[in-house]
């Protein structure tokens, strides 16, 4: 073993060269957009790959205010936050019923929820849109929270069922003897023991909803209620000619998820694999 470590084989060199090329392919566009977002328009064309001469923070200010990215970020945060909390509550309740309570249709219910994973959002857009328009829910944040919540449930339920099933029976039995009600059992024993699961599913729902474009674009037409991906797509487009401001807007849109990912990368990876490995 020791010998292996010290030796540098040509195979290893090739592997590392390949991986470094991959890393460059992945990081170069991100670094490029970051650098360019601090430049002036003229600089982008004259000196595309160098560092900016003077750091132009004005690009960000324009994107944040005139591009309405500020209010969009706030909207996104509100929508994702509410969806996150509701998904956790409703999803883990359903998962508790499926994974822990004893009834005949538990498995059928799980299959019913899992079907939701295979259904593309596009198929329900039109009926939902017309229905919500009648209920005065279109063009309001509530109108996108409800579908987001529904489409986040399958993964949450799926992962949480696994966690609830792994709670040891003895714990529940002793709680039962101590006179614990079913609701207390859920809140005081099962939920705290499945904290990791909640955290992981929460992160995944948050990231997925933060990035969602189609539904938000269809349901919301009021500029002040748009979420981040929609405002971004509107601000950056063929009618805008100020490149550096558009690049600044792109950076604003991807920065939050980069930060979330850097802080919780291990948990996100766990969640991704937990969701698929058991399937």
């Amino acid at each position, binding site marked *: 073993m020791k010998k292996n470590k010290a030796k540098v084989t040509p195979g290893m060199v090739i592997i590392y060269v390949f991986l470094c090329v991959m*890393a460059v392919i992945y990081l170069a566009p991100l670094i490029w957009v970051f650098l360019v977002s601090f430049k002036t328009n003229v600089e982008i064309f004259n000196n595309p790959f160098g560092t900016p001469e003077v750091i132009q923070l004005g690009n960000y200010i324009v994107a944040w205010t005139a591009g309405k990215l500020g209010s969009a970020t706030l909207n996104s945060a509100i929508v994702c936050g509410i969806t996150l909390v509701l998904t956790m509550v409703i999803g883990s309740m359903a998962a508790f019923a499926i994974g822990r309570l004893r*009834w005949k249709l538990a498995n059928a219910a799980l299959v019913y929820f899992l079907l939701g994973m295979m259904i593309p959002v596009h198929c329900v857009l039109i009926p939902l849109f017309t229905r919500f328009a009648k209920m005065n829910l279109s063009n309001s944040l509530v109108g996108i929270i409800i579908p987001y919540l529904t489409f986040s449930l399958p993964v949450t339920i799926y992962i949480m069922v696994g966690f609830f099933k792994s709670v040891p029976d003895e714990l529940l039995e002793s709680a039962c003897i101590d006179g614990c009600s079913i609701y207390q059992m859920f809140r005081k024993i099962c939920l705290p023991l499945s904290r990791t699961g909640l955290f992981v599913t929460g992160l995944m729902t948050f990231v997925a909803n933060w990035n969602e474009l189609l539904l938000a674009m*269809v349901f919301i037409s009021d500029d002040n209620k748009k979420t*981040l991906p929609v405002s*971004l797509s509107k601000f*950056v487009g063929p009618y805008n000619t100020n490149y550096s401001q558009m690049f600044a807007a792109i950076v604003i849109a991807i920065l939050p998820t980069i930060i979330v990912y850097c802080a919780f*990368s291990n948990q996100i990876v766990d969640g*991704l694999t937990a969701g698929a490995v058991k399937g």
Partner: protein
Amino acid sequence: MNKLLRDKKAIIVFIAPAFLLFTFVLFVPICQSIYYSFCDYNALTPPEFVGLKNYRKMFKDDTMVYAMKNSIFFLIFSCISQLIMGLILAGLLTNIKKGRNFFKNVIYLPCVMSSAALGLLWMFIFSPKLGINQILAKFGIEGPLWLMDIKGFIILPMWVIAYVALWQYVGQSMMLYMAQISGIDKSLYEASYIDGCTKPQAFRFITLPLLKPMIGTAMSLNAIGSLKFFDLIYNMTEGGPNHHTEVLATHLYTQGFKYFKYGYASAIGVVLLVMCLIMTGIINRIFKTDDEAM
């Protein structure tokens, strides 16, 4: 305890919110959508039953032909390319020690970013005067119009978009394969090395067969993901030039929410749904038998 867990009232309380949401936001609309697909329906008039008219119209609609061709191209390309690249990356990353986490995180990073934003970013990189063409210009080469060329059966913009999709999502497949590979018993490899097996052989005869169920899972995720594909295309080309890069999802959006042809758009949605179900079915069939044999 048993009695407590069989409490009917509690079961209903726990399951009802999720069940109601699911039924009213997902399953009722799907049934409605299927009904609308047989109707002449736009924003102003109520739905009127016309049978298969919408489906027949699809065959005469040029854009629909492009969209179908492009969606199938995406489906095949993303299944194959993600499988190969995902396996290569996972195989390499599980074999190195230094820097594994760094490479893993870098490659996975785009998966968590907004594909709307990344689509715009790549739109600039492949635009006529910025990004790649600026690099090419330094070497005196005049780069092609990456997103506007419409020559060939599968046009250049489609390859560009397919590449970007691979770039963004290959991390997911890689991650799934890595998780599965790290769960394989090490003694299997040791035994094979004693028998004179080389590393590539070990990968071929031990890793691959044990990965099969996971390949199925990853592939069905890819297949559904590539059919749902919307954000990247919408932001990179908006279906243009002249509808040549339209896919089913963007075509549905334009028909439904720009021209308000709800009936026709619903029919496209049904086609999309059926394709998703068929693909999941096929992939499960292929990989399930091996799963049971193990």
